[in-house]
């Protein structure tokens, strides 16, 4: 088959780029262990309030784990519990969240924290808060008449 030299050049370039992108994805998933926020952890949505850790929403210090704090959020129409949380600067936090009723969003504006909270599933995200400031938590899944009022706040403060 006759193939123009230029065609070979851009085919090799294209396939090479694809391989680089797939390698990045593979390293992220299998070496760094990144996974989707909701990854097979389930809960009975009707018993959220009675089950740990959701019986005590808020920030809790933990020992002997890869993260320093666990931040538990329970979402329901149309608010988050807790409604305001302070996190010490530089803390590595595992955010654990779920919803009691319908699908809600959990987006911390201007950061990589952006999860969907589905009834019956637990969503998790681990991150290090290395910038001080106030961060708005928003629901970005339309959940009903009060959707636009559904917010919470994270304050990263120097300890």
């Amino acid at each position, binding site marked *: 088959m006759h193939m*123009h030299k230029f065609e070979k050049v851009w085919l090799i370039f294209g396939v090479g780029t694809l391989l680089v992108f797939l390698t*990045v994805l593979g390293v992220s998933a299998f070496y760094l262990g990144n996974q989707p926020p909701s990854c097979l952890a389930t809960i009975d949505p009707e018993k959220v309030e009675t089950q740990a850790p959701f019986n005590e929403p808020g920030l809790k210090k933990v020992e002997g784990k890869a993260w320093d704090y666990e931040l538990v959020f329970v979402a329901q129409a149309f608010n988050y519990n807790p409604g305001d949380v302070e996190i010490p600067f530089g803390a590595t936090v595992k955010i654990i969240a779920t919803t009691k009723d319908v699908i809600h969003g959990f987006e911390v504006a201007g950061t990589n*924290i952006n999860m969907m909270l589905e009834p019956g599933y637990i969503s998790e995200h681990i991150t290090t*808060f290395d910038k001080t400031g106030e961060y708005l938590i928003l629901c970005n899944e339309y959940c009903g008449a009060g959707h636009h009022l559904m917010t919470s706040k994270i304050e990263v403060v120097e300890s």
Partner: protein
Amino acid sequence: MAKTELRKNVKTEVEDRSSLKGTLASVFLLGFFLIVSWVGVFFLFLDRF
């Protein structure tokens, strides 16, 4: 009477007359645009917590 042409092994001259320089340039322009935007978003992701 006209004769049907049945010879099949007629060699047609395929000449590489058209230059692919412009195509090469536009393909790489698109390629680099994709890479630059991907890398840009990736570094934005790394920079945020």
